[in-house]
């Protein structure tokens, strides 16, 4: 038997390589940063990313003592999942961009820093932030983040289609009836043209537009103490009935299955009106002449805001202080307006709108944003920040979908959703 003899040096070389790979594997998971650099996770590409990196560079250039490093952490849709995973692995950033709708779940994490005392520092001027954005940073009675972005739903319409159909442009006084009548007139089945588009995938995208309708009719999602469903009410019925009638009688709604075809169709002149926010404005083609108006109203012209926040993670008190110092600077009126001018994001502080650059630069560059800023005054309510919200949203999403597809009457859908929501709240307590 002739066995292969491996020379000593070959074995040793392989051992070295193997150990090196092992060491790299372990080091890769365990790299640590010097405490003088704090990490800032954000989820934007394009213009926003450039603007964020510019702000961070400005801060680093003028503030000695510590450095901020902005890291693209993947699409914001996964920010909550990523942060939770990073926390589980013990590798969390110091600052993380998070959706407002995630606050209730973030409130359950001990690592998220309670900022209730910090925002009250006079220099931060907390009450200067719009009420809608302040509301969205709260969960379990605590301020758990500072505002990162605010938007809201307004009515965006294609002027050419209105002209062709001989319908006058929407006004700030439009009622639901005006809206429904116009949508019907703007619908032309032979030209495959629709008055309105509704995202009908049963997700939060489906639900928040319904919440705006519900609030306009004077209703609310839950009872004030967030313990029971309150939407199975005359207001809820009115809102559901509007959707049911428009989808099943007038056939004036294009039902988008959630793949965002609606925007391409708006660009192609196949959809006359959208209920959407500033984020879609930049995707409207240059050739499409559009207008922006506040939402039509019933009892009120209420809209809904989708504010996002920055949260600070407890990685030691020095780092928390540094993170706070950076955010206070970053969210100062002057700095945020610079960011808004670069990106088209709305101002988050009242005082930003008083700065000269707001009128002279911002509104000139983004004329449509004037309506969205004014519309912030129509944000009077927020989604309940409770841990059961994702399930409540899923229940309501199914109800709205059933009504749009004509599978359930508004009454049936509301009853069914009410039962499910009450069960989910009870299970979540």
């Amino acid at each position, binding site marked *: 038997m002739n066995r292969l003899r491996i020379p*000593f040096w070959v074995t040793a070389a*392989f051992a070295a390589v193997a150990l090196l790979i092992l060491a790299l594997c372990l080091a890769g998971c365990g790299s640590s940063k010097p405490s003088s650099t704090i990490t800032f996770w954000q989820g934007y590409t394009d213009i926003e990313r450039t603007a964020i990196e510019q702000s961070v560079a400005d801060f680093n250039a003028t503030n000695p003592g510590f450095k901020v490093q902005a890291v693209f952490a993947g699409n914001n849709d996964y920010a909550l999942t990523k942060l939770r995973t990073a926390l589980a692995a013990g590798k969390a950033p110091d600052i993380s961009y998070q959706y407002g709708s995630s606050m209730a779940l973030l409130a359950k994490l001990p690592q998220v820093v309670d900022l209730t005392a910090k925002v009250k520092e006079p220099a931060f001027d907390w009450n200067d932030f719009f009420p809608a954005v302040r509301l969205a940073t709260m969960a379990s009675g605590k301020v758990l983040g500072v505002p990162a972005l605010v938007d809201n739903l307004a009515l965006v319409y294609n002027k050419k289609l209105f002209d062709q159909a001989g319908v006058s442009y929407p006004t700030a006084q439009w009622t639901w009836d005006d809206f429904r009548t116009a949508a019907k007139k703007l619908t032309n089945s032979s030209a495959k043209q629709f008055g309105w588009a509704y995202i009908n995938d049963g997700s939060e995208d489906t639900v928040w537009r319904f919440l705006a309708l519900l609030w306009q009719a004077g209703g609310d999602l839950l009872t004030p103490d967030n313990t029971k469903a309150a939407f199975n009410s005359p207001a809820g019925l009115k809102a559901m009935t509007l959707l049911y009638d428009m989808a099943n009688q007038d056939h004036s709604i294009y039902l988008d299955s959630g793949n965002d075809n609606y925007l391409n169709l708006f660009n192609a002149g196949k959809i006359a009106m959208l209920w959407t926010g500033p984020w879609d404005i930049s995707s409207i083609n240059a050739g499409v002449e559009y207008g922006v108006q506040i939402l039509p109203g019933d009892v009120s012209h209420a809209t809904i805001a989708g504010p996002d926040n920055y949260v600070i993670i407890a990685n030691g008190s020095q780092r928390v202080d540094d993170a706070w110092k950076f955010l206070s600077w970053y969210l100062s009126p002057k700095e945020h307006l610079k960011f808004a001018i670069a990106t088209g994001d709305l101002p988050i502080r009242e005082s930003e709108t008083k700065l000269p650059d707001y009128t002279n630069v911002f509104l000139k560059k983004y004329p449509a944003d004037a309506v969205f800023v004014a519309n912030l005054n129509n944000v009077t309510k927020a989604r309940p920040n409770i841990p059961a919200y994702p399930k409540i949203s899923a229940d309501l999403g*199914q109800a709205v979908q059933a009504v749009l597809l004509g599978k359930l009457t508004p009454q049936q859908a509301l009853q069914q959703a009410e039962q499910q929501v009450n069960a989910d709240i009870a299970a979540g307590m």
Partner: protein
Amino acid sequence: MTGAENGAGGRGGPGRARLWDRLFASDHVAGWLFVSPAVVLIGLFGVAPIVWSLIISFQQNSLDTSGIWIGLANYRHLMHDPAFAASVRRTIVYTALFVPITLFAALAVAVTLNRRLHGMRFYRTAVFAPVVTSTVATAIMFSWLLDPYFGIVNLFLNKVGVASQSFFQDPSQALYCIVLVTVWGWLGFAVVIYLAALQGIPRELLEAAEIDGATRWRAFWRVQFPLLGPTTLFLVVWLSINALQEFDEIYVITHGGPLASTTVVVYYLFQQAFAFFDAGYATAIAYVVFLGILALTVVQLLLGRKLVHYRS
């Protein structure tokens, strides 16, 4: 250890150096060193998550806070969850359609392509193209083709006098449309496997059948098809495993809807884990799916042993 190896350990002094030498001269050590990077990676990214998720399935766990041990409660909840039962039913319907349709379509295409014809390479490439196309791209393409209002499919249907269909927007059609999309995506894979198998069948067997007076149809079903048995078995097992885990196309096109009509079991699992952050329940579902797939595969292989003819 052989004497020859001991004799080679002359480097340095005796004793320690000899042991050192012996250790490194042994094939065991060298072998383990060769495979250690792979073992570490598989252990870290394969075995550890499998074990960990089993532990999580016995917990009330939201991934971030350390879980609370609740024993079998997740599994008990599963038994009484009508939404889970419904998602299992949809998965079964989906698999029962997807596997046989893919199989028979692939067989038909493979037989058609198994001949010498001008431009055959082009056709074979064309059939295989969907396999290497990203599922997301495929899904977006079909969501446009089957758009109820603007899709080209409805345009054709209208031309031949059929009313427009709602496809992905209709709870009673959406799952079947997902079957269609995924069959299209998997067909090329099955065709390639069948083609290879068809080309491995000796010509003499078909010639013998011809001489015995068999028609081509009869020769196919009596000679070729039985000889494809092992291939068919492999495809049934492989396609079933994948069908039971169907997710991508549903995630992109329908988000499980409309009205949960395409919420198959893996999509339901995904919702529990990443929409409701109930990792304990989600991993319990994952383990039930795993056991289901394991059981089905064992049954398929046992049946295969009886039905499939292996050429010796």
